[in-house]
């Protein structure tokens, strides 16, 4: 379970948000909404343990966690708006490299299969440099399908994805939640997840 109490953040001298509390249980997704510049990305980076909150605290499985806490790093799969892809490496090498960094070794077959699932089988051995934005996003989806982390934190996962890609994301998220995973997703569009599993948080 992921909990946070009275989180606050500021950018420069202006307050971004304050008093944000949330609670996400196993099998649940929290959708974070809000206009541009209300601090969705900042909140997600805090929850992922990438930055320290100005005030308030975050608990993972009942235990208080600070930025880069080992408990959190072992649990979180973070996908920010930077794709974390290397232009020089091929789609498959990028995927393998990201998974190895997370400590989840994947066999060649499962890599191939995951890339097939996101409709990148023909682009498997192309350098990421030549892929379109949407195709780069799809490598991120393939990574999510292979990583075994209980807490997914996704920042604008639908950006640059087409309808089929969005559907794919919904399917992955659905499977993740059904397996008892947690997700915090910042998005502007509906994800089509079952109502019972979703709660939402609006920043303003």
């Amino acid at each position, binding site marked *: 379970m992921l909990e946070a109490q009275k989180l606050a953040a500021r950018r420069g001298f202006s307050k971004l948000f304050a008093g944000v509390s949330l609670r996400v249980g*196993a*099998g649940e997704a929290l959708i974070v909404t809000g206009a541009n510049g209300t601090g969705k990305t900042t909140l997600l980076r805090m929850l*992922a*343990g*990438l*930055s*320290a909150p100005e005030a308030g605290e975050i608990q993972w*499985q009942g235990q208080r966690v600070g*930025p*880069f806490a*080992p*408990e959190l*790093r*072992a*649990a*979180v799969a*973070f996908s*920010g*708006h*930077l*794709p*974390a*892809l*290397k*232009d*020089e*490496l091929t789609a498959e*090498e990028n995927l393998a*490299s*990201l998974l*190895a*960094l*997370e*400590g989840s070794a994947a066999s060649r077959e499962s890599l191939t299969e995951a890339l097939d699932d996101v409709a990148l089988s023909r682009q498997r051995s192309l350098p990421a440099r030549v892929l379109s934005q949407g195709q780069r996003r799809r490598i991120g989806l393939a990574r999510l399908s292979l990583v*075994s*982390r*209980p807490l997914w934190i996704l920042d604008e996962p639908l950006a640059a994805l087409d309808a089929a890609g969005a559907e794919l994301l919904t399917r992955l998220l659905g*499977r*993740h939640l059904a*397996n*008892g*995973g*947690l997700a915090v997703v910042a998005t502007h569009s509906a994800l089509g997840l079952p109502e019972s599993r979703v709660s939402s948080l609006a920043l303003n």
Partner: protein
Amino acid sequence: MAATLALAPERHDAPAWPAIRWAIARDLKLALRSRAELGVQLLFYVIVASLFPLATTPERGMLALIGPGVLWVAALLASLLSLPRLFAGDYADGTLEQIALSPYPLAALVSGKIIAHWLTTGLPVVLLAPLVGLQYAMDGEALAVLASALLIGTPILSLLGAIGAALTLGLRASGSLLALLVLPLYVPVLIFGAGAVEAARTGLGASAHLSLLGAGLLVACVGAPFAAASAVRIALD
């Protein structure tokens, strides 16, 4: 995915070796894919080192005297030129976030990156030094001492430089700031490195200088990866 994945307690003490291996293998692969960039750095080193005999004097005694110092300065500049590559690329494309969020110890991942950086930029400088040194009419012994001093000294440059590179991540004019930050730290390495050849030439023996360089390397090995890892975390915050 197993149904138990969400609540199963995970191991927190991820080992360091796979992390170091991952970082070395990935950075070497990336370096091989952008060979031109490495070639430019090496060419820079060779050209800087070759300018001095042209600009000063063809007199052999004088050249042998200034040679070690010039080659060390060229090595420092070459190292400085390559340092921004160490973290900036990973920072710009988001890989550094994933690296910092990896369950592996960040200092181990950073160590691997530093080792790869030295293998691709420091080691070629060491290997080229005896060749470039021929322009300075240095004798065999002086060349051997120079190469060993560079072999011990250039890893220190990569280690100290990594701290500076991480501290200047995301700043404007980070390149020049990096030079201001790192060059003063390089001074002791320069003094003992160039001094080793001078000591050998005057018959004092280079072992004292080389031992001091070795001690410096050990200290840098122990401290620098942790300092650089902290700086990376600060840069991401």
